[in-house]
C-alpha cells in the first residue's frame, strides 16, 4: 500500500512521467491492436476464435530473428515474416481450420488451443527456450531532460505497424477480395448464392490473419524480446481488445489497443509490473460486466 502511494506520488511529483507512460503504452498498444485486428477478422468472418493468435505473433518473431541471424537486414524481416506466416497460416487452415469451421464453438476453440500448444512446443524444440531479440543498433531520442525516451527502433516498429494497418484497411475497403471477405462476414450463405467462393475467402482470411500476426511478431522482436511461450500474453490482449471494441469496429479495435497499452503501463507503474497481465484480465472482466449491463443485442459485422 505504501509503495502504491509512493508510486502515485511520483506521478504527481514528475508530471512528465505521465507522458512517458502514455507514449510507451501507445507503442505497445499499436502491436496489440494489430494482433487484435487479425483476431477480429477471423472471428467475424469465420466465427473461429483463434486461441493460437499469440503463437502466430511469436512464430513471426522467430522467423524474423532467424533470418536476421542469417544476415538478412532486420527491417526486411517484417515483410518476410508476413510472407512466411501467410504460407503457414494457409497450411494450418487447410489441415485443421477448414474441418472445424462448421462445427460448434468448442471444437474450434479446442482445435486452435491445440495449435497454440503445438506451435509453442515446436518453436521451443527448434530454437530453444532462451529469450531472443534482434538489436537494430539505433539511437534513442530523449525529450524533457531525458525523462521521455523514444528508441528509434520502437518508432520504426510503430510506423511499420501503422503502415501495415493502413494497407489492410485499404485492401479490405477497395479490393475485390476485401469486399468478398466483408460480404462473407455479413452473411456467408448469401455470399455463396451470389457466387463468392467462401472456402477461398476463409482460407484467404485465415492466411492474412497469420501474416498480420507474423509481421507484428517481427516488429516485436526488434523492439522487445520473445520466447517460445510468450504467445499467451498477446493472445490475452487480443481477446480483451476485441471483446472491448466489438467485431465490426476497426477504429474501436485500434483505440482499445492503444488504450489497453497505456492503461497497462499505468497499472504496472502504480501497482508494480507483476500485475501488468492481471490488469489486462481485470479490464476484460470490467468490459464483460459492462457489456452484460448494456445488453446489446445488435448484430455486429466487420466493416
Amino acid at each position, binding site marked *: 500500500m505504501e509503495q502504491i502511494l509512493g508510486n502515485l506520488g511520483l506521478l504527481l511529483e514528475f508530471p512528465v512521467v505521465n507522458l512517458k507512460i502514455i507514449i510507451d503504452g501507445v507503442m505497445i498498444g499499436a502491436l496489440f491492436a494489430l494482433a487484435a485486428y487479425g483476431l477480429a477478422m477471423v472471428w467475424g468472418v469465420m466465427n473461429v476464435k483463434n486461441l493460437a493468435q499469440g503463437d502466430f505473433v511469436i512464430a513471426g518473431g522467430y522467423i524474423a530473428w532467424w533470418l536476421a541471424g542469417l544476415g538478412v537486414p532486420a527491417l526486411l524481416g517484417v515483410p518476410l515474416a508476413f510472407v512466411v506466416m501467410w504460407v503457414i497460416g494457409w497450411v494450418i487452415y487447410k489441415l485443421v481450420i477448414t474441418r472445424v469451421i462448421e462445427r460448434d464453438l468448442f471444437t474450434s476453440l479446442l482445435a486452435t488451443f491445440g495449435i497454440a500448444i503445438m506451435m509453442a512446443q515446436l518453436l521451443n524444440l527448434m530454437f530453444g*527456450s532462451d*529469450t531472443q531479440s534482434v538489436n537494430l543498433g539505433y539511437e534513442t531520442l530523449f525529450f524533457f531532460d531525458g525523462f521521455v525516451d523514444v528508441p528509434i527502433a520502437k518508432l520504426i516498429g510503430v510506423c511499420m505497424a501503422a503502415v501495415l494497418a493502413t494497407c489492410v484497411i485499404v485492401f479490405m475497403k477497395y479490393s475485390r477480395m476485401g469486399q468478398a471477405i466483408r460480404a462473407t462476414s455479413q452473411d456467408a450463405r448469401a455470399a455463396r448464392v451470389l457466387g463468392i467462393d467462401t472456402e477461398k475467402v476463409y482460407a484467404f482470411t485465415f492466411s492474412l490473419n497469420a501474416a498480420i500476426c507474423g509481421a507484428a511478431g517481427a516488429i516485436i522482436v526488434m523492439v522487445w*524480446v*520473445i520466447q517460445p511461450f510468450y504467445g499467451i*500474453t498477446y493472445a490475452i490482449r487480443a481477446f480483451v481488445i476485441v471483446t472491448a471494441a466489438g467485431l465490426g469496429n476497426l477504429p474501436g479495435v485500434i483505440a482499445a489497443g492503444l488504450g489497453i497499452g497505456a492503461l497497462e503501463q499505468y497499472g504496472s507503474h502504480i501497482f508494480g*509490473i507483476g500485475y501488468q497481465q492481471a490488469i489486462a484480465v481485470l479490464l476484460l472482466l470490467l468490459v464483460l460486466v459492462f457489456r452484460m449491463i448494456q445488453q446489446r443485442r445488435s448484430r455486429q459485422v466487420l466493416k
Partner: protein
Amino acid sequence: MTITRTTLAVLGAVAGTLLFAGQSQAADCEDLVLGSAISLTGKYATNGVHAQNGYEFAIKKIDEAGGVQIGDKCYNFKVTYYDDESKGDRGATLAERLISQDKVQYMLGPYSSGLTKAIAPVTEKYKIPMVEAEGASRSLFNKGYKYLFAVLSTSEQYLASAITLAAEQAEKEGKSAADVKVAVAVENDPFSLDIRAGVLEDAEKLGMQIVIDEKLPRDLSDMSSILTKVKLLKPDVLIVSGHSKGAATAVRQIGEMQISVPMVAITHCEAADVTGNFGEFANDILCSTQWAETLTYEDELFGSAANYDTEFKAAYPEYADKTVPYQVAQASAAVYVFADAFERAGTLDKEAVRDAIAETELSTFYGDIKFSEFGNNIAKPMVLRQIQDGKYNVVAPSAFASHELNWPRK
C-alpha cells in the same frame, strides 16, 4: 540349445575380456556404481547434458589417476543414468527405481532445484547419500535432510556479493554504506525470490535503503515502468533477476533508456547472451556465476581452474568455441567429493560414507568445499564478473579477482 548357450557364454567372456582390455589403466579396479536421474530431454536438457558431461569427465580423470582407493582395493566410478524428462514426478520415480531395483547405494544429483527437491525425499527415505551440483534453492537446506549435500553456493548468495561490493565502493568514496540506495526487481519464482531474500537481508544488515522492490511477471518483455522509477529515484545499485528473459529485457532497456546506475547486477548473462545480443549495452554490468575458469582455485586431480577448462575442452570438442559452463564444473566437483569421501571413509558402508562427506574439507579447482550441517557448501563464495569490453572478467570476491571493478557504470 546347449551349444548355443555355450557359444553365447564364450562370446560373452570374449567380449568381457575385450572390454576390460579396452580400459587401458586401472583394469584391475572394480566398478563402484552411482546412480543419477538427470534431464537428458525436456526443458532442462541443455543443462542436464552439461551436468552429465561434467560427471563423466571427472570419472574419466579419476580412472586415469588410478581409481578410488578404498581400503586396499581400488574402484572405478560408473554411473547408471536415467532420463527424468525434466519432470519432478518422473525424477522421484526413477530415484526409487535406482535405489530399490538397481540397488544403487550412492546418488549424484539431477539438474535444477525443482528436480532435486523431488528426489531428495526419496534418497532421504532410503538413507542414500546424494551429492548434488545443480540445485541451488535454499529451500533444499532447511528441511533437515541428512543425506543431501550440495557443492554449489545457494541461490540467496547469487547477488548478495553485489551488495557487499557496493558497500565497499561507498566507503572508498567516503560515504557510509547506509547512504546506498538499492533497487530490486526479481521474478516471482522460488529461485529469484531466494536471490531477493539474500540481497535484502544483506542490504538491511548494512542499513541500506531499498527504494524499489518489485516482482517481474513470468512473461516479461517490457520493464520500462521499473526503469522509469529508477530514473526518478536514482538508486546506487540495481539488482535484476528473472532468468534469461530478465537479463535480456534489462540489458536491452537499460541501454535504450540510458539508465545510469553506478552498479547493475543481474543473473543469467550467459544464457541470454547479453554481450552477443546487445553489444556495448552490456558493458560494466555485473553478472553472478558459480565458477569461472580464470579463478585461482586448484587441486591435485584437475589442476587449476584454467587447466580444467583446457582439458575438458580437449575431451569434449563441442565446447571448444564457448566458455565451459559452470554447470559442468560443479558436476565434476560433486564426483570429486564422492571420491575424496570414499577414500577417507575406507569402506563402502553408506553411513560411514555419509559421515565422511559431511566432514569434507576440500580445496578444488571449483572452489573450497565444506558442508554446513544442512548440507550446503559454505566455503565457496559466489563470483561476480563484470562485462568489460564484451569480456567477462572476475571482479569479486577481491581475493580471487583478475580485474579491477569499473565503477561507476556510465
